[in-house]
C-alpha cells in the first residue's frame, strides 16, 4: 500500500490515521485511533449496527474479534513497518464479558517480533482497563514470509 510504502521508504512509521481511513472495513466499523508516542489505543465508538444480541443488548462477538484484529494489524504496521499489511495466520479469541452498548478500547502488545511471523496479544475493555471484555492472541505474517 502507498501509505505503508511511503512510511517504509523514509524509514519512519506509517500514518495510522491515514491507514485506517484507507481501509473500508475500518470505516464500516467506525474504528478510530488515539496515539500517544508509541502507545496506540484503538477506539470502537458505540453504534447500533455493532450489536449482536439485541435483547441484552451486547456487541457482536465477531465485531470484537474484528476490532482486535485491526488493533493487532495497526500495532504491527507501526512497530514493524513494511510495504504491505500483515496477514493473519491464526487467531484465538477469548470472550470474557459481554460487550455493553458503550465505546470499546483496544491495545495490542507484540509478544514476539519475528522476521516472518509476529505473535501478538490484544485486549479490549470498556470502562476499566483491568476488566477486559475480550482478548485475542494471534500470529501474523509480514512481508518477506509467505
Amino acid at each position, binding site marked *: *500500500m502507498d501509505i505503508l510504502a511511503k512510511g517504509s521508504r523514509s524509514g519512519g512509521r506509517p500514518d495510522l490515521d491515514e491507514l485506517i481511513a*484507507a*481501509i*473500508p*472495513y*475500518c*470505516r*464500516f*466499523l467506525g474504528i478510530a485511533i488515539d496515539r500517544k508516542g508509541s502507545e496506540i489505543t484503538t477506539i470502537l465508538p458505540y453504534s*447500533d*449496527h*455493532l*450489536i*449482536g*444480541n*439485541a*435483547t*441484552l443488548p*451486547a*456487541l*457482536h*462477538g*465477531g*465485531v470484537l*474479534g*474484528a*476490532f482486535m*484484529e*485491526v488493533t493487532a494489524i495497526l500495532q504491527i504496521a507501526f512497530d514493524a513497518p513494511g510495504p504491505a*499489511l500483515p*496477514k*493473519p*495466520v*491464526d*487467531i*484465538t*479469541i*477469548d*470472550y470474557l*464479558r*459481554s460487550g*455493553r*452498548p*458503550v465505546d470499546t478500547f483496544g491495545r495490542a502488545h507484540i509478544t514476539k517480533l519475528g522476521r516472518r511471523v509476529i505473535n501478538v496479544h490484544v485486549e479490549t475493555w470498556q470502562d476499566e482497563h483491568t476488566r477486559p471484555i475480550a482478548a485475542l492472541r494471534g500470529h501474523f505474517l509480514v512481508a518477506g514470509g509467505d
Partner: protein
Amino acid sequence: MAPHGQIQMPRATVRTDYASATRLRLAKAGVILYRNGMSEPTSDTVSEIDGHLVTDVPHAAAIGMRVISAGDGDAVCFVPYDPRFVGNPETGVVHGGLVTTLLDNTCGIAVTSKTGLHGQIATLDLRIDYMKPADAGKSILARAECFKVTRNIAFVRGIAYQSDPTDPVATCAATFMIGAKSGKGSNLTPAETA
C-alpha cells in the same frame, strides 16, 4: 517426477475418489462437515434469494448475512461481497474480521439449531486459522457443525469457503456457553439501565 513423498495416481482414480479424499483431508484437519450425497452450496451457486437475511441480529443484518440452512446442529450461511468490507484496498480482498463475524455467527446458529436455546448462548472461545485470502468479488460461505453439547458448553467446528468447500478460506473451532444471561439489561450497570 513426483515430489518426494507424494504418490502419483492415475488421473481417473483421483477423480472418482475425489469426494472421499477431500472428506478425509477435512476430517484430518478436524473438520467433519460432509454428509453423503449432499451437494455443497458455493459462491458460484448461491444467490441472494437462496438465503434468508438474518434480521434478529443487528450486526448480521448490517453485513447482509444470510442463512441457507440450519438444523440439527448444522448451519450454512453466507455474506455477499461488498466493497465496504474490504480490508486491503490494493487487492479488494475483504477483511479477516468479516470472516470472523461470519464464522462466529454461523457457529452460534449451529448451536441454536441443536439446543433450541435462542439468544441464550454466548461465545466463550473462537479459534480461527486463515488458510488463504478470500477472492475479491465473491460471496463467502460458512458451514458450522455443533458436534457436542453438554449442560454448560457447546462445541462447534466450522469452515469458511468460496467456490470449493475442500479449499477453505478459513477453519474454526469454537465453544459456546449455554444458558448465558439473557434478561434485558442484565449485563448493564445500574447507571446504564436508568
